[in-house]
């Protein structure tokens, strides 16, 4: 895995991946595998998160205090797993990211429609 190329790719996806993780966690705490599955399932397999970037992203968000990880036994799995949940700061951050994202989508959408109109 040559470093420069990876760095470039992460740069491109990072913001979006972080936002997707935060959004996923709004539905309740889950583990890394659960987050990956959720993203894959909700996008009908369109987006599949690379594990190589998922876990570093989770830890980055945890380090930044946007999510918090705890080892606990939950739900259907009968053993301790690391579950992540949103913190208050994470909730605010998600809010910001979401509105930014909406603006971006709207802006791009307008540009694309203008093109069609011609």
């Amino acid at each position, binding site marked *: 895995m040559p470093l420069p190329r990876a760095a470039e790719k992460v740069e491109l996806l990072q913001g979006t991946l972080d936002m997707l993780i935060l959004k996923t966690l709004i539905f309740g705490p889950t583990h*890394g*595998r659960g987050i990956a599955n959720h993203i894959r399932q909700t996008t009908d397999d369109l987006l599949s998160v690379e594990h190589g970037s998922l876990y*570093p992203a989770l830890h*980055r968000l945890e*380090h*930044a*205090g946007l999510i918090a990880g705890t080892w606990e036994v939950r739900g259907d799995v009968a053993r301790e*797993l*690391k579950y992540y949940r949103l913190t208050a700061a994470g909730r605010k951050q998600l809010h910001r990211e979401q509105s930014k994202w909406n603006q971006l989508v709207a802006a791009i959408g307008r540009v694309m429609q203008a093109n069609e109109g011609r």
Partner: protein
Amino acid sequence: MGWPFHRPRPRPSDAAIARELRDHLELEAAELSAAGLSPREAELRARQRFGNVTVVHEDVRESWGSLWFERLRQDLGFGWRVLWRAPVFTCIAVLCLALGIGANAAVLSWTEGIVRHPFPMVRDQARLVAIAGTAKGASGLDEMSWPDFTDLARGTSAFDAFFVSKITGGTLTGGDRAQRLVGQLVTANYFDAIGVRPMMGRAFLAGEDVGRGAHPVTVISYRLWQDHYGGSRSIIGTTIHFNGVPHTIVGVSPEGFLGTFVGYAMQFWVPASQQAVFDASYKLDDRAARWVEGFARLKPGVSLAAAQAQINGVASTLEAEFPNADRGRGVRIFPIEDNPFDNAKVLKPMLRVAGIVAALILVIVCANIANLLLVRALARRSELLVRRALGASGARLTRQLVTEGLILALAGTTLGVVLAFLSRNMLGSFFAPRGGATLVFGADFHWRVLATTVAIGLVSTLLFALAPALHAARVDLATAMRAIAPGAIGGANRLPMRAALVIVQLCLSVLLLVATGLVVVSLERLLATSPGFAAANITTTGIDLVAAGYDTARAHRFHDELLARSRTLGGVSSVALARSLPFSTRPYDNGPIMVDGYRSAKDEQPTADYNAVTPGYFKTFGVPVLAGREFSTADADTSEPVAIVTRALAARYWPSASPIGRRLRLRERWMRVVGVVGDIKYRSLDEPPGMLFYVPLAQQRTAYVLLFLRTSADNAANGIAPAVGGAIHAVDPAVSPYEIITMREQISRSTAAQRILVTLLFVFSSLALLLAAMGLYGMISYMVSQSARELGLRMALGASPAKLLALVMSSGLRLTLAGIVLGVAIALGTTRLLGTLLYDVSPRDPYILGGVVIVMSAAAMLACLVPAWRATRLDPMRALRL
């Protein structure tokens, strides 16, 4: 990532991260097997999807904490373990680096302490200038007179402050024994001007520097206070006797302040009003007596040129106003690093060359270590391959190897600074001690010096570690995993980087050897230069009767009795007294002269050096009397004043006639020329003879004289010294002589700069030669070991050992030839930089170049011979099976 307010969370342990990733794999495997895959297949698929667990693990770790720091810590830890496991390599590399970096640190700290920032604790030294007098027609510089200096201070506005500090010696009397001290005569504003406050008591008050003997006060040094007074706090207001004259101690200088003279640590300061206590006559009112070592501080923003222009204006006013004293005289200012008064000027050119030498030696060291690292990188090939295969990127490996270099450089820099610190006082040992003064050529470990040293360490890391690291990290998995193909012999071109490094070392070693040869030969020629007198078998010592409280008449009687006694000592063939000592830091007396029958140009004031000597001086020195006669006892203070001129002076002022019977005027006194003697060198061996004449000591009495004895045997100093001391003691037990040395030694001391350079270059060029030979040896050995198979094959096919020897040797000697040719070419172009440090030798001296080529070739032969010989001893069967 800007979340400054959240509570810092600890990074999860490696175990926790590993567990989390493992959980993921297991969950995924479980899902897959639930979907119908066999457990084994499910696990394999999960792993495949996940990718490189180690890399992800590392990336997760790096999500926590600042990335580079964490990596650096890891790399440092790993690098340390790697180096620790190869102690021999590590020690050699660190030692070499310490020598290379230490040499640079030493030169930097010397330059800082001696040239750039020569006076400890004195403020704003960058704006300090030294002020010296010039005379039309004379090439050198001299001092100024007190009246001229004070007029200069009044007449200019470009300076914040003017001050005088004139080095002088005195004998501390009182108590049970006399102690010789060195101190400075200063203006009253001295301590204010240099921004040094006495740690106890006061500095001098305005007006304390005027009035003959009016203000017998002194500030003593911290050292003297400690050594002589045991640091007693009640010392202020007590009396200390200098040369028998009581002075009141008004202050003690702070610890670490050494005065304003490079070379000696001053022990006391007295205001200039006390000048006559330390010299034969009172000179503060005498515009023609030039003795003031003046300094001034430029106002901020004033350029040297602007200040000099202003000074020139005042100087020409003085010349017009006082034509008798100042005709043809000018004043020049120098930045403090070109201070003409102290020993810094001797050392500056030496330090410049030393700086270049140190830089070269560091490059050689770096080339050597780079070579060692390349070898190691090859030896570590398997380790690097495994790490590469495990997912470490090329950049990561490069960083790791550079970090190892950084550890080496760090250790080398630290040790180098320690070495430089240990040698901080080394330069002092090349200079003559003066009286009881402590010699100080202190290095200054200013932060600038340390910062530069660290920078040098970092740059050398780049030099020696980066190239090998890049080289090693370029390991291509596919080709490297294949068996390493054994190389063929003669392949220096197969190892281009190593060959280049070896050539660099050889070439720079040649350069250093040439420089060494040049300075050694010039020192030899310098010392072999005839000073114009027979220096062998002359012993000398100084006798200071001023210090012992003699008046002129008593001094006269003492001199006569001493001469009589010395003459009877065993082995002494001739004795004399004189006012001045050749090759001493104390210059000959100098004065304006007027010459019978010589019409000087309108703005020219002829000046000449003179020495007062007793009859027998020329015989003792072996100076030929070319015309007329020597002085005799008949030339007394009651008879007609006479003089003997040197050939150079006679040729200058009486070019076409005999000077005998003509008259010469020194200041207000006419003297008849009775003889012409041969020229001597007395300032330095590499200067042409100066304008010099002699007067009889009886007609120019002085209380400070030097005794010269010609003995029958050489190395007379050791044998005769006690007898000389005894003779002086017998005349007056209260008088103790200065150091008793031979004139040979005295002359040799005047070559301090050259001797320092010879020592330095000798040590470093030997080191360079050794390193270059090592580099070559390592390279050829490696080549032999890599091509063992080919050598074995050749042997099996019937190549004779001699042929194999020649084969290996030729590849080594090709490198040597390249290095030597390059080195000689660079030497031809650059040794001119040695400039003034060379004497009577061409920078392109063919014999020296030839000698260096021979030495270098011999060393290279030796270095190649060992591995070449080893090549001939290969067992062909074993080698082929490799």
